[in-house]
């Protein structure tokens, strides 16, 4: 399948999105709500490009993270209109996330310093990109979701305080582009969404491994034994070495 991006013909594999084709060709398209490992969302709209199926057709603005590559498609990624759209979108996002280093950087790259709009009264730095809720769904916990509608929407536990479903895996905090999800690790204790988990110490080194709740969830989803998760990789590798050494005759060093 051949399509042209910014005039350059590029090969695309079936099922690939315009974003994947563009990035493979080294074209830098900004994204915020996109994550290769999670279901595409198409909400932040930063990755929009202009596409045309026929030369005389008016260009259509589509999100490249969702738009599938098609044979013969004509795509432009950095037209003046697109740059203006991205600048405005980042300007708007600054009203929500003035404290986000990533968004400030992206905005600066598009010529936007402080927001020219009216900022949110108490900005939470959350841009409602739902990467966190999608990660939580992928992990299988479904502990958090978007509550409310429109601009009032916010990422929340059920009934604001019900963290029962959370397993303390930390994926939500890890994927959040603006870092507005608090995760505190002190020794074995891990505090997130207002709940404190105790990470199980490694049987060998005492280092923290994963939480018991996370292990239970993994075991339920994969059938692996729940107590098989509580050794760090360092510790377990050592155990593996000892096991192999035993198998080949302890320490004599003679050829097998």
């Amino acid at each position: 399948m051949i399509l042209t991006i910014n005039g350059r013909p590029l090969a695309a594999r079936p099922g690939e999105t315009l974003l994947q084709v563009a990035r493979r060709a080294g074209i830098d398209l900004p994204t915020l709500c996109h994550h290769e490992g999670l279901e595409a969302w198409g909400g932040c709209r930063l990755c929009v490009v202009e596409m045309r199926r026929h030369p005389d057709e008016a260009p259509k603005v589509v999100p490249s993270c969702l738009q599938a590559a098609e044979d013969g498609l004509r795509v432009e990624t950095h037209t003046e209109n697109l740059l203006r759209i991205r600048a405005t979108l980042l300007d708007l996002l600054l009203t929500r996330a003035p404290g986000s280093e990533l968004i400030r950087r992206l905005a600066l790259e598009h010529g936007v310093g402080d927001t020219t709009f009216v900022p949110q009264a108490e900005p939470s730095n959350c841009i409602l990109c739902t990467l966190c809720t999608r990660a939580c769904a992928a992990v299988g916990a479904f502990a958090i979701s978007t509550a409310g509608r429109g601009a009032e929407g916010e990422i929340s536990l059920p009934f604001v305080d019900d963290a029962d479903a959370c397993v303390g895996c930390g994926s939500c905090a890890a994927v959040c582009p603006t870092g507005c999800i608090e995760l505190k690790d002190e020794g074995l204790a891990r505090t997130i969404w207002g709940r404190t988990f105790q990470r199980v110490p490694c049987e060998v080194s005492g280092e923290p491994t994963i939480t018991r709740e996370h292990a239970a969830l993994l075991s339920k989803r994969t059938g692996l034994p729940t107590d098989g998760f509580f050794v760090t990789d360092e510790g377990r590798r050592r155990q593996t070495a000892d096991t192999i050494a035993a198998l080949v005759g302890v320490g004599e060093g003679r050829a097998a």
Partner: protein
Amino acid sequence: MSERIPNLAALEAWRASLQAAHDANRKAIAICAGTGCKAYGSDKLAEAFRKGVAERGLDVDVRATGCHGFCERGPLVVIYPSMIFYQEVGRKNLAKDVAEILDQTVAAAPGAEQIVPRLQYKTPAGEAVVHERDVPFYKHQNRLILSFNGKIDPESLADYVRNGGYRALGKALGSMTPEQVLAEVEASGLRGRGGAGFPTGRKWRFTRTADAPRVDGRPMKYVVCNADEGDPGAFMDRSVLEGNPHGVLEGLLLGAYAIGAREGYVYVRNEYPLAVQRLTKAIADARAAGLLGDDILGTGFAFDLHVTRGAGAFVCGEETALIGSVEGNKGQPRFRPPYPAVSGLWGCPTNINNVETWVNVPLIVDRGAAWFAGIGTAGSKGTKIFSLVGKVNHTGLVEVPMGASLRHIVEHIGGGIKDGRAFKAVQTGGPSGGCLPESMLDLEVDFDTLTAAGSMMGSGGMIVMDDRTCMVDVARYFIDFLIQESCGKCTPCRDGLIQMGHLMHDLVEGRGTHATLDRLEALAPVVRDASLCALGQTAPNPVLSTLKYFRHEYLAHIDDKQCPAGVCKALITYRITDRCTGCTICAVQCPEKVITGEKKALHLIDEARCTRCGVCHSVCTFDAIDILPGR
């Protein structure tokens, strides 16, 4: 109620027997039981008529029907067979009105009926009208769909069948292949009445040809009736659902047969409880009569229908959001493709059409595509129901052929502007549409002309505005509406509308500058081009169209700091004129207690402390208070 109809012949036999048994010239009192007339107490009225008929031992049928369309003059009563039309019956004096109608009109022999003048419709020129067809509101209309509303009892399958109901279904199942039914709809030129005007036949074709996942062995496809009707100011779907639910069912059955769908959903918005009740009854009756479920009319065709209710979300009018809602999720739009026709409800091909689109289908199959294509304009076929509301004398549902002019609708049918004021604009297409000025009054209304004029057909809401409506405030109203209804998924709509809201509030609250207009005109295209779904993409239309046709009003709000229409509180002044008789009612009612004056003497408003809440102006019975633009 009705036992199962085994086959097509039995259906026609039942129809013939109903028609024979129906004494066409037997007197009947048809009382409108739509939501509008119910609000004016038509239920109590119907009871009174039944009691009156019994007391007088009259051989007269008292029938509660669906919405006649002329809602503002409700409760509406039509005396069959002579079609004598009475309005506002029982509003002021129920017993007297009922007695006089029964004794003078109903009891008299046909042709010798006496008319009760007090309850007659009078033209603006004061001329009393006797028959429904002569009332200007109805005379200029071409009521194909709405004709059922006045005639049949919406809760009676027999009434619908007697008036030709399910004949199209019999014809299709008996002598047409699904392909032929689909070809008929394509040839008719019917376009979606939901708002975008996408050719219905082509949409059905996509769903019919899409390959479907198999559910218990057979391909599963769905047909859905979009009865979300979220556009404020539009209520034609409501009247069709309440007045002729079987018409919608028959349309869905024909669509399912043509497309090859086995199940269907009617998604009704939560604010229409009566429509849900009537639909649920119609479905139960149809199932009992063998018109729904397995082996319909003995032809082996199987189709079942469910009613699901929305729960208060305008965005659910958008197809993929609607699908999300029926699936038990948030009503949030999804990227397309895949279009619902290919992958909709639970991944199965789903054809979604608006109520009014579905109810056109039986007419097309019954009378043929050529007949339908003969109505309307080159690009837009058939009739369209508009809900004509706002500052117009005759508010209600207007069904006219595509191509009727705005002037024809607003003046001839609508009876001109209320209280003789000046026409300023008509808003069409709801929050996705625009406001058209007087210069566009001669526009022949159809899908393409409205879009060209910067507005949209939308579902057919037509809100007439006079000189006392401020266009800047209307644009502010729509932006505030859309801020509440945005689903919040994408940045341009969620956060862009908030900022457009701030800019509009600056304008109506007197803080607007020329920079405000520049910012609006810079932000609007971004919201339009980058938003995910039609809600966001069309959200700037009301602002852009009012800027286009009423820029002078924006400039008045900026440069002169005045609201010419007297609406925007920050830019108007309430002043008592010498017409004041000193009755003191304004001083008593004023919540801020800023009106002073002795009994019988000219009163004075302390304009500095007045919050311009408008209470004095509304309570003053001598129209002595002027609303002056500016502060």
